[in-house]
C-alpha cells in the first residue's frame, strides 16, 4: 500500500486530557487492525528488521571508570529571536542616539538586522555617522520620517560588520618591544557602500526644508526642558 498522509484528527476524542472516549478494544476495532490482519493472512504486516551495524571486533574495556556518575547536560535547543522592533521605529525614521561615540546625533534608520540590532546611517556627509549598528534600547524614535524608497540595503547584514580577526603573531622578544603599528585603513568597498546608501538618502533629505540642518544638529537638553513631557 502506498504510504498515506497521517490522520490529522484522532479517532478517539478526549473526554478529559488523558482519558479517551473509547477503550483499547474499541479502538482496535475502530482502527481496523482486524481488517488489515485479515487482508494479510492473520498477521499484521511488518518490515524486516534493519540489519544491525556489525559490532567493532574486540572492544577493549575502558581504562578509566569515573567514581561518580556525571550527569550529561540537556542539549540547549533555544533559538533566540531578534528583538521585537518598537512600533514607532519604521524604515526612514529619524532616531536620536543616546549612548556611545555618536551620543546625541540624529540619524536615519534603515532596517533591522537579523541579530536584532538596527542599521543606521548619518548620512555620513551630514553628521559624520557612518553605516552602523545600534541597539534599539539606546535610541529615541522621533516621529520624523525620511523617504527611504530609493535606498537599497539588502546587502547589509551582521557579517558585514564583523571585526577582522587579528593575526596571531609569534611571541618573540623583538616583536614584543616593537609594538607593530597596524594601520587600520577603511577598505574602499566600505566607502563605496556608504556613498551608495547616502546619495539617494541625501536627495530625499534635501527635498524637505530644514531637514539637513536638523540631522546635522545634536539633540540637547536645556534648562527647564522636561524629557518626560517632550513629544518626539
Amino acid at each position, binding site marked *: 500500500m502506498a504510504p498515506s498522509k497521517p490522520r490529522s484528527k484522532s479517532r478517539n476524542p478526549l473526554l478529559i486530557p488523558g482519558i479517551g472516549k473509547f477503550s483499547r478494544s474499541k479502538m482496535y476495532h475502530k482502527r481496523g487492525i482486524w481488517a488489515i490482519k485479515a487482508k494479510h493472512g492473520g498477521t499484521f504486516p511488518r518490515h524486516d528488521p534493519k540489519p544491525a551495524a556489525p559490532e567493532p571486533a574486540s572492544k577493549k574495556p575502558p581504562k578509566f571508570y569515573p567514581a561518580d556518575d556525571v550527569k550529561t547536560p540537556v542539549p540547549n535547543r533555544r533559538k533566540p529571536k531578534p528583538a521585537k522592533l518598537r512600533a514607532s521605529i519604521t524604515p526612514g525614521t*529619524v532616531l*536620536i542616539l543616546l549612548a556611545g561615540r555618536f551620543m546625541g546625533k*540624529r540619524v536615519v534608520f534603515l532596517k533591522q538586522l537579523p541579530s536584532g540590532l538596527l542599521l543606521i546611517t548619518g548620512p555620513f556627509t551630514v553628521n559624520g555617522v557612518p553605516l552602523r549598528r545600534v541597539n534599539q534600547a539606546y535610541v529615541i524614535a*522621533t*516621529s*520624523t520620517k525620511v523617504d527611504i524608497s530609493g535606498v537599497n540595503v539588502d546587502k547589509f547584514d551582521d557579517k558585514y560588520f564583523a571585526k577582522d580577526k587579528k593575526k596571531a603573531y609569534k611571541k618573540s622578544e623583538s616583536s614584543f618591544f616593537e609594538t607593530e603599528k597596524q594601520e587600520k585603513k577603511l577598505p574602499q568597498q566600505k566607502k563605496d557602500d556608504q556613498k551608495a546608501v547616502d546619495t539617494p538618502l541625501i536627495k530625499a533629505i534635501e527635498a524637505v526644508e*530644514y*531637514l539637513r*540642518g*536638523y540631522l546635522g*544638529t545634536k*539633540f540637547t537638553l536645556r534648562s527647564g526642558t522636561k524629557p518626560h*513631557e*517632550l*513629544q*518626539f
Partner: protein
Amino acid sequence: MPFKRYVEIGRVALVNYGKEYGRLVVIVDVIDQNRALVDAPDMIRGQINFKRLSLTDIKIDIPRVPKKKTLIEAMETADVKNKWEKSSWGRKLIVQKRRAALNDFDRYKVMVAKIKRGRAIREKLAKLKRENPA
C-alpha cells in the same frame, strides 16, 4: 480692591484640576457653599468643587439649570468661544498647548527661527546705533 469676577449662574469658568482639567464650563447652579453644578456643550452636567474652578471674565445669560439646547444657544449668542480665544488668558493657553505638542523637528525649526529673528533685531539695532551716536 473689590472682587470683579463673581460666582453666579452663567459665569464661565476653567476647570483647573481633575479629569476635566482645561475645560471651559458654565456654572448653571450653586449647590452649597463649596460646590456648583456646571455644564458644557460636550459634557454631562455635574457637580464640581469651587476650588477646582478658575473664574473667567465671561458671563452668559441663562436661566437656572437650563436645558442643553438653551445653554448651547446662549453660548452662541454670547460668542463665548471667540471671546475666550481672543482674551490674553485664552491665547496663552493655546500657545502652551501648541508648544507642548511640538515634535523634535518642530522644536529645531523654532530654534532656527528664534536665532534668525534675534540676529535680524541685533543687526537693525547696531545699524541704528551707528547712525545715531548718542
